């Protein structure tokens, strides 16, 4: 495993344990998980006990010690999504992928995560696939999305656009604009 990037990341911050969290975040971003060798290297460079690094790596949910699948599906279970049926979406995706939240499919294609609020409550229930939001989910739509992803094509599943019936523009010249 090539750990040059880890060294570069640490060099960018300076070898101080106060930056450990940022270093781990960047490693996670770089490799999509925290390789054990990278953690061991970081512990040495930052002069931290390996146990402390391991503790951080397992404490924060942003980190994973296992490689993630090609598609990381995050089903939002924030409060807003929950009251709109987020749990049912998760169940549907679990059923479709035949894995539980927190697992990766055996072919390495999908990782499923249940997350708490991605901050886009208005679009709930929401499923994020590799940082791309899929809004207004229903269990049926979620299943479809997975099938599409597995087949390699992604169609946006979106809210119906505003009705296009009222096409007649209003002439504003009769109504002078305010402000």
């Amino acid at each position, binding site marked *: 495993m090539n750990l040059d990037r880890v060294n570069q990341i640490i060099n960018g911050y300076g070898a101080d344990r106060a930056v450990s969290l940022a270093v781990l975040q960047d490693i996670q971003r770089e490799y999509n998980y925290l390789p054990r060798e990278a953690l061991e290297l970081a512990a040495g460079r930052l002069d931290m*006990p*390996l*146990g*402390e690094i*391991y503790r951080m790596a397992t*404490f924060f949910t942003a980190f994973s010690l296992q490689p993630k699948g090609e598609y990381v599906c995050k089903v939002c279970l924030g409060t807003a999504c929950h009251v709109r049926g987020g749990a049912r979406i998760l169940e549907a995706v679990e059923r479709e992928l035949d894995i539980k939240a927190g697992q990766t499919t055996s072919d390495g294609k999908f990782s499923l995560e249940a997350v708490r609020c991605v901050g886009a409550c208005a679009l709930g229930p929401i499923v994020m696939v590799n940082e791309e939001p899929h809004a207004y989910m229903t269990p049926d739509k979620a299943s479809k999305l997975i099938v599409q992803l597995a087949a390699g094509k992604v169609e946006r599943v979106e809210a119906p656009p505003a009705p296009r019936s009222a096409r007649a523009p209003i002439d504003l010249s009769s109504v002078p604009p305010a402000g």
Partner: protein
Amino acid sequence: MATLIIDGQEVHAEEGQTVLEVARANGFEIPTLCYHPQLEPYGACRLCIVEVIRRGRSRLETSCTYPARDGLVIKTKSPPVIEARAVILGLLLSRCPNVPVIQELALEYGITEPPFPVEDPEEKCILCGLCVRTCHELVKADVLNFSQRGIERRVGPPFLEKTRQCIGCGACTIVCPTGAIEIVLEQAGIYKEKPLGPTAAIWVPSLQAVPRVPVIDTDACIRFRQNDRTEGEIADACGVCQMVCEAGAINFDQQDEVVEVDVGTVIVATGFQMWDPAQLSQYSYGKSPNIITGMEFEHLSNAGGITSGEILLADGRKPEQVAIIHCVGSRDHNAHEYCSRICCMYSLKQAHLVRDKTDAAVYEFYMDMRAFGKGYEEFYERVQEEGVVMIRGRGAEVEVLPDGKLRVKGEDANLGRLVYVDVDMVVLSTAIEAPHDANQVAALFGLSRSVDGFFAEAHPKMRPVETNTGGVFLAGAAQAPKDVPDTVAHAGAAASMALALMDQGEVTISPAVAVVDEELCSGCKTCISLCPYTAISFIEEDNVARVNEALCKGCGTCVAACPAGAIEALHFTDEQIVAQIEGVLAWV
């Protein structure tokens, strides 16, 4: 100094004390699980909560972390406190239903059954963090740590795997309140080589010594081992002994040092060492933890020892048969030919102790019973009356049987037959021998050693405490194996000889000493290396050898050896001897 009221009683607190410390110092009982006086307060188990009333507001706070501020009113047993503790104990009992400490505490608060569903009845860890904090704060090994969070929180080494970072100090197992940590030794640990050896890095080598001084084994001490790991830098690890020693007697910086003292006389009392029975493989020493030496038996039966004086087998059972083998390494052409003199009597004493403390049968394999001291013969008879089986004949071999029993074989010389007995424990009455560094001591003081390796006295009958070096005396087993009364007598004699010498204020020496004729001396230094009394030194500026008359015994070695014929023995010059001869022959 702060004044606060605990359960209606006014108490005083020092600066920096916590409520818990003040309460405990004043005899108030507060339960804790995650607190340890040598560690930073952590506030995790929450059992030590008390009601704190400050500025009229009452709250529940953990006493282990709450500073003892002036004017606080503390209630350690008010209903909200009791209720909260009971709920917490109920929760902890549900986590760890089979941990005695939790069971007992819960029972105190009236909880007998886990009130909530139990996930894993074998769970023992309550996540108090004592082990983690000990490993970090005291040991500085930083091996144990938490991982995960919430209910998934765990304690363990990195990646929850075996790690070479663990120094196996075992501090975590000691602080763990619930017995959740076990140390598995994969290789023989420091103390696994010998049974009944020390169990900690600080131990008392001679249990009955006065004063009873402990030593730190730097090979085992966490602090010294961490020093090694940090390549000689002082690791600020552990140091608990220093913190708890009220006398302030522990100093880690202490180094071995050479002390120079000017003295008039020297008494050499370097004692003996026990002979290692592993040198004779037929005794199987080291192959079973229940084959022990007489010295180890002493540690075992001592009230201050690891079993508090109980005589137990390695697995904690009481022995049912014990064999004691005399003359292990003594009177033996393969080891020491001499008689160690003390073994017969200590073996009898140990036989007596076994009979006294257990119901075990005792078999003594002896060659001759040398009960020569005052009252010794009577003791021998008494031990025989106590039912100890005496087998005359050397115990020849000890065999470890597959079931752990020990088979002792030997010849009963009285019956003229080979015999064996199966026992649980074998005590080897090992020889005593001169210390391993006796030759260095001998060279230092110009002492001779007898064939057995002990220091030679000036005359076996007439001068038993003196040596051939003036002002140097022998005391105790340094001279030859001795039991306690003989040692005391010998040492008394040495002391009085030394005192007598010093009391005179001056030393009478024989007039027959060697002198160097400096005109003739060529400075070859031959005499210097030959002088057994280090009485000749070389004077650089004059390039000649010179004799210290106070040290010279007039032995004449140098006179005979001097190639230049520059040394003469005073009053024994060739001319004088020739004159004497001529005078004698004048009769003829």
